[in-house]
């Protein structure tokens, strides 16, 4: 082979080498100069992890600063998965023996996917301090196991005001979706009901964010930065803890008394499965007490409620203790609705305060005639509006009701009801409020169309007006609407949106924001209308013929005059609902109270005694023992 050929071949070799190097350089140029910015971000994301730790939630206080829901520091054993060493099973076995929790339970908790793999996972809480010390002193036996203090929801008064404060649980997918932008992550806690939900944004605070640098194996190398947690704000409620306690105790006692009483009408004892009591300040709509029976322990939701317990809470046989019957319960208001009928009658001029009806105990209407009766067909004789309210003459209100129809078939009862906020959301900040219903010809038709079996008749008759006049028929309201209507009468016509939140406080107890009263509507209730109605209600409490008089026997109505109205609602297939609505003192109303107990008989027997005890507490008297007073209506 000639030298020239060799040179040529070496030249070819050189060209091959140069080409290969050029390819490398071109690629290097592309990656490092042209595509570098995009890759740089990718490299950063690769090595940085964010770890979030929720801040302690704010507390929930009563109006005087007493703690309803607080936080408790809990000694907790946590496990760092990545530090368990070569024999994780041994460590878990040792730990299991130490804390008396089965190994498989510990393993399940350690593998709980809700927790970030970069932070220790709580596996056992409320461990004795000695256990934590033991772990610290025998760290070689427990690599990756640590004792820490975690904060948890704490309920110093147990179930007190459970329906107001609500409970906290783990966020679910449906709740998470709209809150992702707010920084919520799977596994976070969120208010599920009550104030915990209504004031979630204030209570939550801001989580601690730790920025970690990790290597390819996920080992934490160092902390790049830490944004400390900001504890949530406290919410001070308008609830008075002591009054709340009286309301709840009295409600429970009256229900127990009803359950022990034989009901002649149904031939069995009263079922009295549920009830509610609410106290409102008519001057601004703030809720002073809100009791719902049956109740539950919010503490059962800490660390996630078991499916079994949650099932029990939602079992019809348990009468749904999670429901707040003040805002969610729907009841026929019965005679307590006469407030509305009275105002409507006076406003339209269908009656005057002096207008009198001869109450013979019955009222006949229609063809063929239907006979409607007072309770026990009792005849009250000649009664004007005030007397009719005091003795609860249904005949008077049948009379009045029949005047709204026929003829123009005016709907002023419905209009007045709506003016007073009935049949509509009160717009209290608590969630899941029910709206209620004040029926008229249109709603009756609509109800029939949607469910002909339950509502067989689409037509609106005079009889419907009569039913409406005494708060029966298709009329249903929540106890909160009822108390708000009485508060409106008390304050002269302002319909407030009731509220349980008073103010938002920071960690140091300084007020961040005051929750201002909100006015839903103002309606004029002139003295000419208000006075005879209030007089009738006052008589019901303090007049010896008054329906609520037995319950208020011995109460100092001369110094603290109370206006009240009993109600006994007939519910098809059930025993009567007992109702009582009141406010006082009538010269300067500061308290409006409503008590409703399902299947407990007369309002005067079951509901009024609860209100009596609430007023006892308000005026500082010893609480009157609950006794089932004999009553009519």
């Amino acid at each position: 082979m000639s030298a020239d050929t060799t040179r040529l071949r070496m030249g070819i070799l050189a060209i091959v080498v140069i080409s290969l190097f050029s390819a490398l350089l071109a690629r290097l140029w592309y990656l490092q100069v042209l595509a570098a910015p995009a890759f740089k971000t990718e490299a950063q994301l690769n090595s940085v992890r964010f770890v979030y730790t929720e801040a302690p939630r704010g507390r929930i206080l009563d109006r005087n600063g007493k703690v309803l829901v607080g936080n408790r520091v809990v000694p907790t054993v946590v496990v760092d998965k990545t530090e368990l060493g070569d024999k994780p099973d041994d460590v878990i076995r040792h730990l299991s023996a130490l804390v008396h929790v089965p190994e498989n339970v510990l393993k399940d908790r350690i593998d709980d996917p809700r927790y970030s793999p970069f932070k220790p996972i709580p596996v056992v809480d409320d461990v004795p301090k000695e256990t934590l010390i033991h772990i610290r002193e025998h760290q070689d036996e427990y690599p990756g196991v640590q004792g820490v203090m975690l904060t948890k929801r704490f309920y110093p008064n147990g179930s007190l005001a459970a329906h107001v404060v609500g409970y906290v649980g783990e966020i679910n997918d449906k709740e998470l979706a709209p809150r992702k932008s707010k920084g919520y992550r799977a596994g976070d806690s969120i208010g599920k009901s009550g104030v915990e939900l209504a004031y979630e944004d204030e209570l939550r605070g801001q989580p601690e964010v730790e920025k970690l640098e990790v290597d390819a194996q996920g080992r934490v190398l160092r902390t790049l930065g830490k944004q400390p947690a900001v504890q949530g704000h406290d919410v001070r409620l308008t609830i008075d803890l002591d009054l709340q306690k009286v309301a709840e105790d009295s409600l429970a006692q009256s229900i127990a008394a009803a359950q022990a009483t034989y009901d002649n009408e149904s031939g069995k004892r009263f079922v009295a499965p549920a009830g509610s009591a609410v106290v409102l300040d008519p001057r601004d709509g703030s809720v002073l007490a809100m009791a719902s029976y049956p109740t539950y322990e919010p503490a059962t939701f800490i660390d996630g409620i078991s499916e079994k317990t949650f099932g029990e809470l939602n079992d019809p046989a348990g009468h749904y203790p999670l429901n707040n019957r003040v805002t969610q319960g729907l009841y026929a208001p019965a005679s307590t609705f006469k407030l509305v009928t009275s105002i409507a009658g006076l406003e339209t001029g269908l009656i005057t305060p002096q207008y009198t009806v001869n109450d013979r105990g019955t009222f006949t209407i229609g063809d063929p005639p239907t006979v409607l009766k007072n309770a026990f067909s009792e005849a009250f004789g000649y009664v004007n509006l005030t007397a009719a309210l005091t003795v609860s003459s249904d005949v008077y209100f049948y009379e009045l009701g029949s005047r709204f129809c026929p003829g123009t078939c005016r709907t002023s009862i419905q209009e007045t009801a709506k003016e007073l906020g009935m049949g509509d959301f009160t717009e209290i900040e608590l969630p899941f409020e029910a709206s209620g219903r004040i029926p008229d010809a249109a709603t009756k038709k609509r109800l029939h169309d949607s469910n002909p079996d339950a509502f067989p008749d689409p037509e609106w008759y005079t009889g419907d007006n009569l039913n409406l006049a005494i708060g029966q028929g298709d009329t249903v309201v929540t106890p909160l609407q009822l108390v708000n209507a009485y508060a409106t009468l008390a304050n002269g016509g302002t319909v407030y949106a009731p509220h349980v939140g008073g103010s938002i406080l920071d960690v140091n107890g300084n007020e961040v924001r005051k929750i201002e009263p909100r006015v839903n509507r103002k309606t004029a209730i002139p003295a000419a209308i208000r006075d005879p109605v209030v007089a009738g209600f006052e008589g019901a409490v303090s007049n010896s013929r008054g329906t609520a008089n037995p319950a208020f026997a011995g109460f100092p109505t001369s110094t603290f005059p109370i206006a009240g109205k009993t109600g006994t609602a007939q519910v098809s297939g059930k025993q009567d609902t007992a109702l009582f609505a009141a406010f006082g003192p009538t010269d300067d109303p500061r308290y409006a109270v409503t008590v409703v107990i399902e299947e407990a008989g007369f309002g005067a027997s079951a509901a009024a005694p609860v209100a009596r005890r609430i007023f006892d507490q308000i005026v500082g008297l010893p609480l009157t023992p609950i006794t089932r007073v004999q009553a009519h209506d």
Partner: protein
Amino acid sequence: MALDLRSANARRSSSSWRHLDLLLLAAVAGITAIGLLMIYSSTRQGQAAAGLDPGYFLKRQALFVVVGVLVMVGVACIDYQLLRDVAPAIYAAALFVLLLVISPLGTERRGTQAWFQVGPYQFEPSELAKLALVIALAAFCAAHRGELDTGRLTTALGIAVVPLLLIYLQPDVGTGMVFVAVLMGILLVGGASPRQIAILTLMGITAIVMVLQLGVLKDYQRDRLSAFLDPKEDVQRSAYNLNQSKIAIAAGGVGGRGLFRGTQTNLSFVPEQHTDFIFTAVGEELGFVGACTLLALFGLVMWRTWRAAITAKDQFGMLVCVGVLAMLVFQVFENVGMTMGITPIAGIPLPLMSYGGSATVATFAALGLVISVQMRRFS
């Protein structure tokens, strides 16, 4: 270093050492230094995190370099022409050792039986077998003065194929590819006709397709080899190395992220970074400027080796240099190309850079051959 060598050896063979290529040595020294730095950078954090000596890999590689330099000097001292005479013996010894390593005496690691465990060190005979192949092929082709008929060409192929098969049994696809590159390089310069080269190339392509299609390779091998074609496909498996490697290099940008400051490098996102993927550390921490400098140093080594080839006083010396050149070029191209996603992933170390004793010593020995040829060009 070069000056020391010169004075130390001047007494023994003053005539040859005068022609020592200092430029080549400087380039080699530069690459080796960058290599040591990058090995330290890519291992210290992982070692420290595990509570081990952060300088462990640095120290061991430094030891390999010292041994390598001694071997290089030793080889350079030998007149390469002696090697031509003992080429068959060297070749036979290499085959024997390759046989030995796939016998129960060899050690298996990650599915490849390619090492002898000697105390705390592993010796990988296939690295030295490359040199044996260079010498054997060069000797064979030189003996026929570039006149290769079909019979001789077949013999030449046979010389390469026998060790190739032994390496395939380990299996070590990467080293096998280096053998092919050496064969092609020496045949190109050593006398194969253009027609023969064309046929060989065609055969080579057919062989590659068959290897990929006929299940000769294990699945993971095929995945690794073809991952560069579509790295986005499966980030978790074969393409993971490649993606992380590309991210690392690209993240370096023009100026690099600074020595010891590359997150990909320090946090061991790139697997095998101190060995096969050492170039990613250069790319990330020293940037385009540093990577180009390194490639330029390699280019310098290639150029000097190429020059040693054309100035060699005989055909054997030239073909030895060509063989070494082919070996180095292929390894640099394949390795660097692999980290940037333009060549298949194969376990081929970057000469003078990757951590590893056998490869380091083998590369220095190869350079010793080049020096031996180069400084005896006038004698």
